[in-house]
């Protein structure tokens, strides 16, 4: 189908975008790889699209001392090519090739993925696993929200109507950092049926600060908080058993909740091996 009629404005700056968002039914347009599809299907009918693609200063990848900053308009393809991300945020580098297809990654943005908050998307779960912070600018100024607090519900985030997500801050991986990523999708590039993003800190034979963030199993990325300490102790099977308490995947168009629950265990064993903690 074709999109319903709407007005369009190009924002010159973040402040200008916030000003334009004061109009009724205004939506931000970044990469558009989800938004324009929903317009074509007439699932959303905004009165105004505020295009931020021309706003300068939002496509940077900057390595600071303790964290790496990724601007909201950094496109997946740009992030895939980034040596800084490969080194400082290896979990993101692992996840990127799973997102859509090359043509989608040429256009889709890191910030757009987080702001849209599809429950089956890869990057939101990565941000939760990494303990990243989301940088937001709104009419009242600037603030940062932890990824754990950012995803509120189905396609619902901490962003208010006139907020602009400007970037993310991810703690830089150290020599002790271990990451793992795996997902099941019917075809490469499809949204996952179930996926898992994981991060931990190795300490001799132990793992500390294990963070397991599942996607495709609920309305938001879901931390497996019972499985995390079990995996830290090195007991992979106990961690898999604990998933029963952690996850309650609903049925969806792709598969049943029971299949998702089973696959979540399979993914945990795979990711545990990546984290270097599988019983040999």
């Amino acid at each position: 189908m074709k999109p319903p009629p709407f007005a369009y404005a190009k924002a010159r700056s973040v402040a200008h975008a916030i000003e334009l968002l004061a109009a009724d039914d205004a939506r931000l347009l970044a990469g558009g790889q989800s938004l324009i599809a929903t317009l074509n299907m007439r699932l959303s009918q905004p009165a105004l699209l505020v295009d931020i693609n021309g706003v300068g200063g939002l496509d940077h990848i900057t390595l600071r001392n303790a964290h790496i900053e990724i601007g909201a308009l950094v496109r997946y393809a740009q992030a895939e090519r980034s040596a800084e991300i490969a080194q400082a945020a290896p979990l993101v580098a692992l996840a990127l090739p799973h997102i859509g297809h090359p043509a989608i990654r040429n256009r889709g943005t890191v910030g757009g993925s987080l702001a849209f908050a599809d429950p089956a998307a890869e990057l939101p779960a990565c941000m939760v696993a990494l303990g990243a912070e989301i940088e937001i600018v709104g009419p009242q100024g600037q603030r940062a929200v932890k990824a754990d607090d950012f995803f509120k519900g189905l396609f619902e985030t901490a962003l208010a109507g006139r907020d602009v997500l400007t970037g993310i801050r991810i703690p830089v991986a150290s020599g002790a950092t271990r990451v793992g990523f795996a997902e099941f999708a019917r075809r490469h590039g499809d949204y996952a049926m179930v996926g898992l993003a994981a991060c931990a800190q190795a300490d001799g034979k132990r793992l500390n600060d294990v963070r397991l963030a599942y996607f495709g199993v609920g309305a938001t990325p879901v931390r497996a908080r019972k499985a995390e300490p079990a995996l830290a102790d090195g007991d992979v099977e106990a961690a898999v058993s604990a998933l029963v308490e952690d996850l309650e995947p609903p049925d969806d168009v792709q598969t049943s909740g029971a299949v998702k629950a089973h696959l979540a265990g399979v993914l945990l064993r795979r990711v545990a091996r990546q984290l270097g903690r599988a019983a040999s």
Partner: protein
Amino acid sequence: MSQRFHEIAITVNGEEVRERVDARKTLVDFLREDLALTGSHVGCEHGVCGACSVRVNGAVVRGCLMLAVQCDGARVDTIEGVADTDEIADLQQAFVARNALQCGYCTPGMLLTAQELLGRSGVPSREQIRAHLSGNYCRCTGYQAIVDAVEAVAKTRAEANR
């Protein structure tokens, strides 16, 4: 400036075009309906099938997931332009030689997407070719012949560049 209709200037296949467009018009509809460049096809209209693939500022994108109004000031290359410059003549010949198309609906998008992969250094593996073309659907060939054609061109070009 919050309005429905906008004047845009786009360089399409090397020629500057000035048009007044409705904000809701997608890039691929603009190319087909306003410029009569019907080589870019419209398939699913939600970014899944790849039939509408075009290049914007050198990168292959979905023509159905970009608005024409967003392309103001951009350089757009369609299959017509890329074919006219002979940039993909060898790839086109390989598709014909190996029967890598039947109805031809996916072919323009397939060629542009394959050309993007072939522009990188080295000869891609069949796995890499399949992964790169994973967002371009073909309902006729079963992909085997397409992968064969892309692989053959990758090898020939690598030889020629030695």
